[in-house]
């Protein structure tokens, strides 16, 4: 197995995913298989190859600096689970 429980738990924490106890074993096993599978990329001859981030060789377009989005708070907050006085609520943020 290329990944162990601890590594998978760490990845899950980075990704903010809680894995149920009965999910962990299967996740470790399947993720290991995926990692083993993609490991074959190491054999590809990529010396001096430029990495490709985009399928097309295009350039970022720039938009004019103008306010085009009016306030739509009440509509946009209809999907939020907890709102008070226009603020989104979360458990207390400790700094």
């Amino acid at each position, binding site marked *: 197995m290329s*990944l162990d429980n601890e590594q*998978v738990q760490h*990845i*899950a*924490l*980075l*990704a*903010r*995913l*809680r*894995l*149920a106890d009965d*999910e962990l074993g*299967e*996740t470790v096993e*399947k*993720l290991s*298989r*995926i*990692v083993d*599978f*993609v490991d*074959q*990329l*190491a054999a*590809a*001859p*990529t010396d001096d*190859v*430029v*990495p*490709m*981030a*985009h*399928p*097309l060789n*295009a350039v*970022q*377009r720039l*938009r004019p600096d103008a306010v085009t989005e009016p306030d*739509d708070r009440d*509509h*946009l*907050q*209809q*999907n*939020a*689970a*907890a709102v008070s006085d226009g603020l*989104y609520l*979360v*458990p*207390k*943020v*400790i700094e």
Partner: protein
Amino acid sequence: MTALHEMTLSGLKAGLDAGEFTSVEIVSALLGRIESLDPQLNAFITVLGEAALADAARADEARARGDAGPLCGLPIVHKDIFCMRDVRTTCGSRMLENFVSPYDATVVERLAGAGAVVLGKTNMDEFAMGSSNETSWFGPVKNPWDPACSPGGSSGGSAAAVAARLAPAATATDTGGSIRQPAALTGTVGIKPTYGRVSRYGMIAFASSLDQAGVITRTAEDSARLLGVMAGFDERDSTSIDHPVPDYVGELDVALDGLRIGIVRQHFDAGLDASCAQAVRDALAELEKRGAVLTEVDLPNLDYCVPTYYVVAPAECSSNLSRFDGVRFGYRAKDPEDLLDLYCRSRGEGFGAEVKRRIMTGTYVLSAGYYDAYYLQAQKVRQLISEDFRRAFADVDLIAGPTTPTPAFRLGDKTDDPITMYLNDIYTIGANLAGLPALSAPCGMVDGLPVGLHLVGPHWSEGRLLAATHQYQQDTAWHEAAPEAFR
């Protein structure tokens, strides 16, 4: 007269133009079919009954006023990945089970602007991550040709709805084959355009550099009709390209004479079902008969396509799906102990197993110490794969081959091993990595299940793909075959 549900988009348009029937009649007929037949398929997540009828009535009025857009009154369905204002948009996930989009995707807006009437939102693999439609929170879709089989994925609901004659046309999206593979497995036409051809604005992102919207229909002509409306520059999508949109319907009559079609040697290696191989060879012979010139081409890095994809796509998805945190929209876990608990449980409970696996794969390949070996290396191999295509298209106009290694597989068959499932997309992924337009069209049957012919072209050659398919469909009838239970 042919029943309304048997008619193509083009046939319905002709009938509406001639005043043979109304949009309300079409929509009523199809809604009735959805109500009675969809329970067998589970192709829909949301059916828009009254809203669709109201839109159809408005379309009929517009037509009566002489104010008919190119798709006025024609019924379509949207994959539930496209945001539609004031309509639930789930992306096949528990995470968005109750999400009502406050805005329209550009695709939705353009089709509505052309007068199309939306019958509903179709089922899909969760966040488009899957090749069998089994990862949907709303349950798997069944293949109309055999309910024990998968219709493919992730656009399984769109493909099944079109194959079962519940709708003549559907929007869909394709990140690694999610339009073409289900089209192949359901005997429909599915086209994924060039990356940047259709706006991604409002299409919930899976892997931004690979995702592209397209359509599933029964004929190339219908695809041309829809794509012509959807395609084109959108200032809200930085990756949308300002490239003129040709008249796809007008170009369908271009003859195949002298069209150079490349056959990829590696496509017929081990892994391809022998009967499928034969169906594809027969289709190629048919194209040759109509004047195409067949030559062999080489894609030496083909075997790297799937592993490259399974680094790039998860990497992008791990980041794209971070916005689902239970705060502004989407599933929120009950009674979180603290902030970390809110995040981990909302995401742990809101996402299904395959989505979580991909997020974790992506998190892993981007993390400190692994970035160069996985993500950067995959980007380099992606360049090699694109160069293979560039070289091939120096000699040929199109590349043709099988869409999938086998016809539809049985539900549950590939759920145990992710790699087996991933390899189902071996022929389709290359087009996404290189950003090329590609299409699957029905070209035969094996044991009562459809087989797809896969065509890939150079950037911006959608018109050529559609015309070649249209010409093929003039002499063949595979696209007319309908599953018995849904005739």
